[in-house]
């Protein structure tokens, strides 16, 4: 299919008994981008990743990973990609260092210099036995094995869930390094700040279906801006203007959400009302996200 896409998913469905885990998921990850895969627990992120890895069969739809079939070509494809599961378990009888080396070698080899550097950066003790590690440390082991393998595509399933803020910062640096080195990264997460800081494009998934996909800029453009203004006189009709939502007025200060396409008209009214101060912010990813999920529950 398209040469510039590392992962192409079209209309993917997957059922577990009566539960529809994926309901026609579409996803396109361009080569060289960091793609955020956002959704709450149970939205189908992990199922989608497992199908991309050939660990599960999709029921319907089309999936292509690095130009190959995820199930049929699994062994060849897995040389070119690395996966970090959301819940890493290590072998009780193997040390963390042994697990890192083993996973790297099974993938076709590790860069020892990069491995040593990552062990250092993540402040990881490789001599403990599997069971002695905390959740965050088990995740570090899987991350080090993945990042030191120098593969084209990294599939990361909520990789920072157990990391402390310091290690999360190290993780972000590493992801930016990988991107600079031309790797493609799929970062599944429910941490919006992380996605916002790292990702070029985002796909939001709900109930096994992509509800939004695009660059952050574009997603924001499609949605509302937060406007806070300090006015001499608050115009009577401000709340009734087209595109204005959730107006709050406290004395001379007003706050509201404005649809992007009506922003110009609304600002014109505001500037004619004795404008003394104005902040106009694009929505955070959090607000984007909440809108999709609140729309669902109401």
């Amino acid at each position, binding site marked *: 299919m398209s040469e510039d896409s590392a992962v192409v998913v079209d209309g993917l469905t997957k059922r577990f008994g009566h539960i529809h885990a994926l309901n026609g998921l579409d996803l396109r990850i361009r080569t060289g981008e960091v793609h955020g895969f956002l959704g709450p627990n149970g939205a189908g992120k992990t199922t989608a990743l*497992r199908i991309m*890895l050939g*660990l*599960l*069969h999709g029921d319907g739809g089309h999936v292509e990973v690095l130009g190959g079939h995820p199930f049929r070509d*699994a*062994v*060849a494809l*897995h*040389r070119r990609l*690395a*996966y970090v*599961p959301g*819940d*890493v*378990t*290590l*072998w*009780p*009888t*193997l*040390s*963390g*260092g*042994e697990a*890192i*080396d*083993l*996973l790297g*070698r*099974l*993938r*076709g080899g590790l860069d020892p210099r990069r491995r040593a550097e990552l062990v250092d950066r993540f402040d990881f003790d*490789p*001599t*403990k*036995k599997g*069971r*002695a590690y905390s959740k965050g440390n088990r995740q570090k082991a*899987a991350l080090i094995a993945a990042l030191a393998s120098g593969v084209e595509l990294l599939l990361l399933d909520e990789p920072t869930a157990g990391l402390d803020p310091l290690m999360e910062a190290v993780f972000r640096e590493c992801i930016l390094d990988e991107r600079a080195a031309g790797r493609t990264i799929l970062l599944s997460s429910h941490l919006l700040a992380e996605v916002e800081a790292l990702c070029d494009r985002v796909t939001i998934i709900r109930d096994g279906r992509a509800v939004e996909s695009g660059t952050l800029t574009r997603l924001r453009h499609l949605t509302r801006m937060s406007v806070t203004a300090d006015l001499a006189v608050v115009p009577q009709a401000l709340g009734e203007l087209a595109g204005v939502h959730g107006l709050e007025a406290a004395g001379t200060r007003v706050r509201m959400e404005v649809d992007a396409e009506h922003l110009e008209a609304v600002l014109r009214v505001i500037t004619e009302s004795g404008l003394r101060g104005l902040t106009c912010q694009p929505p955070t990813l959090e607000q984007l996200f909440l809108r999709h999920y609140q729309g669902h529950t109401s």
Partner: protein
Amino acid sequence: MTGTGVLLRLALRRDRLMLPLWILVIVALPIGTASAIAELYPAAGQRLTLGTTIMANPALQALTGPVYEASSVGGLTAWRATNVAAVLAALMSALLVVRHTRAEEDSGRAELIGAAPVGRYALPAAAVLTSLMANLVIAALLTAGLTGQGLPLAGSAAFAGSVAGAGLVFTGIAAVAAQVAGAARAANTIAVTALGLSFLVRAAGDAAGNDAVSWVSPLGWAQRTRAFAGERWWVLPMSAAATLILLAVADQVARRRDLGGGLLAARRGPASAAPSLRSPLVLAWRLHRGSLAIWAVAFAVVGGVFGALAETVGDLIEGNEQIAGLLAALGGENALVDTFFATQLDLFALVAGGYAVQAALRPRSEEVAGRAEPVLAASVPRSRWLFGHVTLSLAGSALILAAAGLAAGVVHGLRVGDPAGQAVRILGAAVAQVPAVWVSAGFAVLLFGLLPRAVAAAWALLVAFAVLDLFGPLFQFDEWVRLLSPYARLPALPGGVFTPMPYVWLCLTAVLLIGVGIAGFVQRDLEPD
């Protein structure tokens, strides 16, 4: 102890299928035995002859213990069924307790429960209570069932109590193991090893006619309750007291350790892997080698003990003209020694089947624990990953049987002045059991490939094979029914006539089962939960 009731209900719900199945088997075996003996040996004279024959055969006594009272149906039932029922009750209790304590901690569910308003010791308490209830149910059903067969109430109750008593002692042993060990697997190993040692000590004591040795084993206590043979009621409170002491020890250990930790602390490992750790087969070796070493040593030790006993087999019949005459017709004392080895090796094969099934199901526990996923997400064909574990199951079971045969042969050979010759002979007879064991492994692989949620059926199948093999002659099953067990298909070696066909068929069956299992796994979804 707050919350124990809720956890008890949770445990009973989680075991609503397996536990009734265990209880059914443990209760049905003695009742079926009583019914079979009443039908096959209706006259007291026939039963006495059977009793005399048994007492002349140390191999049988190693398996089942001595006959205390041969004239009654109850006495023979107690002889035949006490040990089997006690071993099964002990195994059920041990696995139950570990499953609801240590395995819960390993899975992290205990943490979830510990954070809820439940007492710190509610989890072990609920596990012990579950086991206690299961054993009481067994005792009640056995008493009712045996009296239902027309046996005296006192003997039935003593029999039922002795079986439940073994279950209780191993409830205690497993409770201690669950606290001492660093993980559920290790706890199971400790408890099952204790059971194996108890069996061995009792078998050695009974085969050699040394009562004091048999008293050391909790399984020996069960027989020495002497159900239907002048009941020794005081043995039952002995089991209860031992259980309480063990539970007190478990409680003391529990107070001294952290959740998830063990007394046997984890050691550190190397910071990087040896160059050899680079394939699924080597990974499988690393995962299996610890338990394989324990099994091999245990088999060698037990084999050596039986090797030491073999030569004394003849001594027991020296005073008995009738048996000696019978034996001379069969080929003399050497034939008796051969029969002894053949019987014991059959038993070793069944136990080795336990190793083979356990090892062949290791991929399933890897899958459930989420450790299969990262390996299969690397560039590893599924067939190679599974084949690594299958190889360890097949080669490992052959190795432990060889260890038992070699040790038995060398020790026996030293006593009769022919170590090399006997070593080769008994080793050969031991290795000849391997194809039957592989069929058990084959069923485990088949289930893993096609019905991963039903892999426990591989254990049920092994128990069924054992029952057919060991009880087939007593129950006078039709030959074709008995031959459903691969273990019953092999010629009795040493001493018997070697025919190659059974081996060829069993090996082909194993290959077919494994092939279909691997083909199924290659195609199916990974099912971690």
